[in-house]
Structure formats: structure tokens, C-alpha cells
């Protein structure tokens, strides 16, 4: 099957310019991220604040341009598209943000908010658009009585439904959900997660699900990539990562997850993630890694395949090497 999305070695650097244009440090927000997505998949990007997961999401939606690297959508390199073609392409990928309070225009009615994308893309006439808006409202579980309402009249869960409807109205192939359920109460979060699942089946949607909540990601996603300091350190199926994390960082991350079963053998990491403007040489994690070796400080680990779709970038492992099952931090 041909992948919907291929991301190859994308980098996003921000240059910190000092007064009088004297160049200072380079912040490597995303530093060589590659993965591909099949149709209908839910792909989770996890990691701590500042690891570059949101930046990766924005590059994929082309809200920001990558410094280098290739984003290919249904085989088409997006860099080769003209401005006009790129605009038409934008229908295909939509993004839902965390904060529905700030992503909906408070001065406009919901009908206006949901119709605007259709107008921008010059789709249909007034009656068709209205029909489409009502249809999409129904898809997210709201009725036509919401058309004339304003965002402030809605509860948090309803606002997030509208944000999803606004993404859905253009019938996209791929939706990036950037912390889309993080601000919600559990009971509302459950409703929104169910809704996203339902829509995925109905419209054969592909999701990139960005979240710091590992429980939600493990529930929702088929595959997971763990990011640290702008790089993917490990990727695999949800079961691979959740049950058998290989990278010392993934192990620490998943062991720190608060669960209902209570915690066992928690790995407590020392210190914070380093400043991305002064990223360490070699493996990005070596400054906090309990298992760091001499070479980790200067040689960047290659990505090695463990089994199937499970890949890890760590010097502890070699290609196809299954003897390191028990390389635990503790």
C-alpha cells in the first residue's frame, strides 16, 4: 500500500538573531525526523514539552516551512508545488489545536466559522455550503440550532467539537490533532475520543495524534513515535512501545506514566531536557541517560530495526539484535 504521508529527514532550525544582526545560537527544534503513514492509521507523537512534536505537526500541515528535508503527500513532494497548487493541497491536511478558546473567532457565528474554509476554497454555492455545514455539525454530534450561536455560548467539549467540524468540513485525508483532548475533563475527553474514532471509520481518516498524555495515546493510536530534543528516538506499534520500550528515554517516559494499576519500578530521570539551542553532541539523551557509554557523547546512534516496525536509535542495540531484551535502566 502506498503511504499517505512520507516525511524524510525534516529539520526545522530557528536562528536567534542578536541586535545588529549578529548571529547567535541556532535552535534545532526538529532535527532529522523521518516516518511514513498509511491510510487510516492513527500515529502518535509523544514526548515532553520542547521535544519538537508540535513543530513536526506544523511542518506536516505546512503551516511553517521546514529548513530542509522532504514532506511527500500521496507521493507528491510538497516543495515542488506552486503556491496555487499548495493552496489547493491544503484541503487535504487539517490541524486541530489544544485550545478551542483561542482557535475560534469569538466575534463570528458558528455557521460563519464553519463556512469560511469552503468560501476560501471556492467550493459550492450558498445553499450547498449551508447543507455541508449542517451535515458536518451532525457529524460531530451537534444540530442545526448551533448555526447562529457564538463560541462563548458553548461548553469546552462543544467548542472542541466545532474545532473538529472546522477541520472536517473540507473532507481532509489527514488530520493533525495537537493536544486536542488535553484540556478536557475525562468524561468530555472520552466523548471526543469516541467521536474521533467514529469519524476515522466513517471517512477513512488518517490521524497524527500529538499528546503528552501517554494513556490517551496508547488508547488511541496504532503506532507511536517517541521524540526527544527534536529527534525520534524510537518508533513502533503501540504494543512495541508500550510493553517493550527499548530506548532508555522511552523506558523512563513510560515508567513515569501514572496508571490506575499503581506504579512499579519507576525510573526517575535527573534534571531537565537540555536547551535546544545548545543541544549536546552525539545522542541527544546522553546527558540524562542512566546507561550512557563513552561513545554516546560524540557519536550519533544510527536507527536500527529491532523487529517488524520497531526501530530504535541507541548505541545499546544493533541491527536485528534480539539479545538485548533486558537492557533496562534499572
Amino acid at each position, binding site marked *: 500500500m502506498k503511504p499517505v504521508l512520507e516525511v524524510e529527514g525534516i529539520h526545522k532550525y530557528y536562528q536567534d538573531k542578536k541586535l545588529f544582526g549578529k548571529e547567535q545560537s541556532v535552535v534545532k527544534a526538529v532535527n532529522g525526523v523521518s516516518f511514513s503513514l498509511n491510510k487510516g492509521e492513527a500515529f502518535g507523537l509523544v514526548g515532553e514539552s520542547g521535544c519538537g512534536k508540535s513543530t513536526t505537526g506544523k511542518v506536516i500541515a505546512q503551516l511553517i516551512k521546514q529548513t530542509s528535508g522532504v514532506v511527500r503527500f500521496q507521493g507528491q513532494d510538497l516543495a515542488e508545488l506552486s503556491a496555487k497548487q499548495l493552496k489547493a493541497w491544503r484541503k487535504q491536511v487539517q490541524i486541530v489545536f489544544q485550545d478551542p478558546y483561542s482557535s475560534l473567532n469569538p466575534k463570528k457565528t458558528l455557521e460563519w466559522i464553519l463556512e469560511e474554509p469552503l468560501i476560501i476554497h471556492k467550493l459550492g454555492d450558498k445553499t450547498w455550503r449551508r447543507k455541508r455545514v449542517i451535515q458536518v455539525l451532525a457529524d460531530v454530534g451537534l444540530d442545526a440550532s448551533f448555526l447562529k450561536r457564538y463560541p462563548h455560548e458553548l461548553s469546552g467539549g462543544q467548542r472542541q467539537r466545532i474545532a473538529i467540524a472546522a477541520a472536517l468540513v473540507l473532507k481532509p485525508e489527514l488530520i493533525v490533532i495537537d493536544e486536542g483532548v488535553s484540556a478536557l475533563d475525562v468524561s468530555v475527553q472520552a466523548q471526543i475520543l469516541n467521536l474521533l474514532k467514529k469519524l476515522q471509520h466513517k471517512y477513512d481518516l488518517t490521524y497524527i495524534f500529538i499528546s503528552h498524555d501517554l494513556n490517551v495515546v496508547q488508547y*488511541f493510536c496504532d503506532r507511536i513515535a517517541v521524540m526527544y530534543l527534536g529527534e525520534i528516538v524510537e518508533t513502533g506499534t503501540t504494543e512495541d512501545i508500550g510493553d517493550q520500550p527499548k530506548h532508555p528515554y522511552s523506558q523512563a517516559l513510560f515508567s513515569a506514566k*501514572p496508571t490506575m494499576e499503581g506504579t512499579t519500578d519507576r525510573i526517575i530521570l535527573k534534571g531537565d531536557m537540555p536547551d535546544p539551542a545548545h543541544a549536546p553532541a552525539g545522542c541527544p539523551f546522553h546527558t540524562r541517560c542512566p546507561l550512557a557509554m563513552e561513545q554516546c557523547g560524540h557519536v550519533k546512534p544510527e536507527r536500527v530495526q529491532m523487529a517488524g516496525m520497531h526501530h530504535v536509535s541507541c548505541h545499546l542495540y544493533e541491527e536485528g539484535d534480539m539479545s538485548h531484551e533486558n537492557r533496562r535502566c534499572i
Partner: protein
Amino acid sequence: MTDALLTIDDVNVSFRFSDGHYPALNHISFSVSQNEVVGIVGESGCGKSLTARTIMGILPDNAMLSQGSIMFDDTDLARLDEQEWQAIRGRRISMIFQEPMTSLNPLLTIGRQIEEVLKKHTKKTKRDMKAKTISVMNSVGLPRAEALYKSYPHHLSGGMRQRVVIAMALIGEPDLIIADEPTTALDVTIQAQILDLFKSLKATRNMSMVFISHDWGVIRSVCDRVIVMYAGRIVEEGTVEALLQNPQHPYTKALIQSIPDHTKKGQMLYTIPGTVPGLKERGSGCPFASRCQHKQAICEQKFPEPVRMGEQSVACHLYSEAGVLE
């Protein structure tokens, strides 16, 4: 169980609006023993944060404590004036707020803000205060404490600010900490560090806590007992194990069922129909009645008395002292 350090007895708090008074907390009673961590869970608007503010005596201007007592040792906190409060806040009881952006002063250095409690309550020298501040900053996992001491809140990331707020609460070595979602804004690995710190403070200093969170996983890892609130009422209370393994109130059951995790992958999550009733839509009956699958006629009329059931107590008409009613 040892003597209670904090006993809240039959507290009512109401909000004053132009069209009348509306109760926001109804008959809240619970106690916290020494060396005990009591969790409060519930959805937004259920009164968790208001309970914390009521204990600390920092209610919003239009809210009023209309009934009840809050005994801390032998002092009724509900009857203290502002001056008497000054001797207690920060020193004996301190609070960790959930928004570090609003609880830090942007114009003062981090060091000065953490130190303030020591300045107010102790006669330490400047050098001693700084040493103490740096050691507390280290214990909450703030890196490069010496350098941070002189920096301002805007230099720090959200997670670091939250740890500054936690350090401010800890430095006075209080007997009781009221923590309102203290780790919600933190990344999981930092959250794990902080939860570990709370646990060690409890073990070494006999510290007690009221721990407000919407995350059952966090509650599970730090709390001894937990209180479930809904629309300004306590609907269930008990040990963490009892509540997680054997929830009795339909709301607690629904809440636990709706939590996503890897074991529920591929299934639809349980959802509760309807929404939490607003402040002005609450009658005299059980506030959960309109969303409850087991609603009876009496539920709309009268709020049920809490019933003791082994390790927990539950306020629901489904249960009586004798056990489950049919």
C-alpha cells in the same frame, strides 16, 4: 487512625449574584490526619478548587462561607481574621496553585519570591535564607539553582515555574499543604520527580496534604484516601484502593470507566450523557440525577445521606445502612 489535623465540618459556600445566592459547596465534611494525603477528584466546576480556597480563607469577593467550621488543630480557620491568618499561611498551611503564571510576581526574582516566607516567619540571616532557598530549589528538581535564584519568572519554562511555586509552598515546612492540580502542567518525567518528593516529605516530615487532581493515576500514586465531588457535593469517599476497585456511586463508576488506557484499545470509551449542571440549575435533590442510569423518583427531591460501607462512604439512594437497596 491518628487525630485529625484538619476537620471540615458541614461547610456551605454560596455565590452572590444580582439575582440571589446560589450554593456552590453543600455540606462538605471531611478530615485529614497527620501524615495523610487526601485526594479530591471531580470534573471542572464540581467545587474542588473552591474547597481549597475555602480552607485557605481566600474566597472570591462574591463568595461567602455561610455555615460550618474548619478546625485546624484547635483553631477554627473559618473564624480567623486576616491578621491571625498571616501567622498560619505559608508557615503552617501553604497552598500550591495550578497556574504558575498568575501566582508569581513578574517583577521579583525567583529567589526573593521563594524566600519571602522565611523573611516573614523566621529570623534567619540573609545567607542562611539563601542556602535554604537553594536547597529547596534543588529538592524540587530545579536545575542550576544558583543561577535561577537571580532570574525572573519570564526566564523560566512553564514546568520550571510550577516547580518554583511548589518550592514556595515547601520552604516554610508547613504541616499541611493544599495542592490544587500541582503537577498537571508538568511533563510526566518531572511529574514523577515531584510526586516522589511529596511522598518522601510525607515519610520524613509527617506532612499532610489535600491533593486536588482530575487524574486518577496521579491520585493513585500519592493519596491515601480520596473524595469524589460532583456539583458542590461529596458523593463518595474512601481509601484509594477501595474506590478504584469497588466504586459504588454511579458517578464514580462512570468517571473511572471513561478513563482511556491501553487496555481499552479498540473499544469505545464509556461516556456520561449530559453535562454538569450549572450553579443556578442545581435543585435540592441529587445533582447527578439527570445523568444517572439508576435514577429513582426520590433522587430529584432529596440529597441522600452518606452511608458508610466498609472502607468507603457513599451518598446515593441506591444504598442504605443495611446494604444495597433494590
